[in-house]
C-alpha cells in the first residue's frame, strides 16, 4: 500500500507539472481502464480478462526498458539541440523544407514507438509545426530502416520488403502537406518557444 500511495503522489505531483499531464489525466485514465476491464469481463468473462492481463503484463515488461532508454535519448537530445534550432528547421514557417527534413529524420530514427514518441515530444516542445510532426511520425512508421531490416526482409523476403518500401516513400510528404490546412481547421496550434 505505501508503494501505491507513493506512486499516486509522484504521478499527480502538480508542482512538477510542465506539459499538462497531471492529476486530472491520471484519474481520467484510471477510470477508463476500470471501465475497459469491466467491459472485457462482461463480454469475454474471466478468460478474456486473464488473457488481456497476461498480454498487458508481457507488453509492459517489454516496454519499460525501452521506454526508459527512449526517454534518456530524448532528455539528452533536448539538452544538445537548442529549441531555436528545432523551431527554425521544423516550425510553422519552415513549410515544405520542414516536411522534407522531418521525413528524412523520421526515416533514419532507430527504435520503436518508445523512442519516437519521446522525440516527437521534444520536437513539439521545441516549436515544430503539426505538418513537420506528422511527416516525422509517418516517415518513422513507414520508412524506418531498422524495422525494414529487422522484420520485413527477414520475414517477408527482399522483394516484398522492397515493394512495400517503394510504395510508402510518398506517404510522409502527402501527410505533411495535408496536415497544415487540417490543423488550422481543427484548431491545433504549434507551441510557441519563449
Amino acid at each position, binding site marked *: 500500500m505505501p508503494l501505491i500511495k507513493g506512486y499516486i503522489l509522484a504521478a499527480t505531483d502538480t508542482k512538477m507539472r510542465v506539459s499538462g499531464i497531471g492529476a486530472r489525466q491520471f484519474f481520467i485514465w484510471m477510470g477508463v481502464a476500470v471501465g475497459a476491464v469491466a467491459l472485457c469481463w462482461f463480454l469475454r468473462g474471466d478468460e478474456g480478462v486473464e488473457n488481456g492481463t497476461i498480454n498487458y503484463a508481457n507488453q509492459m515488461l517489454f516496454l519499460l526498458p525501452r521506454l526508459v532508454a527512449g526517454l534518456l535519448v530524448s532528455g539528452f537530445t533536448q539538452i544538445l539541440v537548442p529549441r531555436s534550432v528545432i523551431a527554425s528547421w521544423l516550425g510553422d514557417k519552415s513549410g515544405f523544407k520542414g516536411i522534407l527534413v522531418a521525413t528524412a529524420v523520421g526515416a533514419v530514427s532507430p527504435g520503436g514507438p518508445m523512442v519516437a514518441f519521446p522525440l516527437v515530444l521534444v520536437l513539439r516542445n521545441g516549436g515544430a509545426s503539426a505538418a513537420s510532426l506528422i511527416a516525422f511520425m509517418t516517415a518513422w512508421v513507414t520508412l524506418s530502416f531498422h524495422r525494414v531490416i529487422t522484420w520485413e526482409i527477414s520475414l517477408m523476403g527482399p522483394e516484398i520488403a522492397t515493394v512495400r518500401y517503394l510504395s510508402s516513400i510518398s506517404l510522409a510528404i502527402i501527410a505533411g502537406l495535408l496536415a497544415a490546412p487540417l490543423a488550422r481547421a481543427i484548431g*491545433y496550434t504549434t507551441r510557441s518557444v519563449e
Partner: protein
Amino acid sequence: MSSNEFFDPSMIVLWGLVALLAGITVWKKGKGGIAAGLRSSWEMFRQIMCVIPFAMLVAYMLAEVFPSELIGGWLGEGSGVLGLVIASFSGAFVPSGPFVSFPIAITLLHSGAGVPQLVAFVTGWALLAVHRVLALELPLMGARFVAVRLGVSIGLPTIAGATAYVLWPYLAQL
C-alpha cells in the same frame, strides 16, 4: 514472450544510442548537461507513467473484445480496391507491435492474400494502429493532434496498396 524477444537487437541499439548521446552531452555540456538531461527525462517519465499503465491496459482489454482473428478472408489477389480498403483498416486493428503484425501478415500471404493487399495491411497497421493511438498518442499528444494526424493518414494505406499494385508486377519478375 521468450527471452530473445526481450533482448532483441533493438534493445542493444537503443542503449547504445543512450551511451553515445550521454558521451556527447558530457563532451559538449559537461556534467551539468548530464544532470539537466536526466532531470528532463525523469520529468517526462513521471508524466508518462501517469497515463501509460492505464492506457495500455485499456488497449489490451479492448484487444480481447475485438480479437484479430476476425481479420482476413477478403484480401485475395482479385479483391481489388475494396480489398485494399479492407486490408488498410484491418491492419489498424492488430493490437500489438511488429512481433505480432508481421507474423499475421505472413499468415495472410500464405492464405492467399495479394501483395498489394499485404502492403495496405502493413501500412494500415503502421499508420492507424488503434492500440498505439489509444495507449501513447492520445495521452501524450492530445485529441486535436490525433484528429489531425488520423485525418491526413486515413487514406494513405490505400494509396500505398495502390502503388504496390502498379509496382509489384515489375518487382516480381526480378
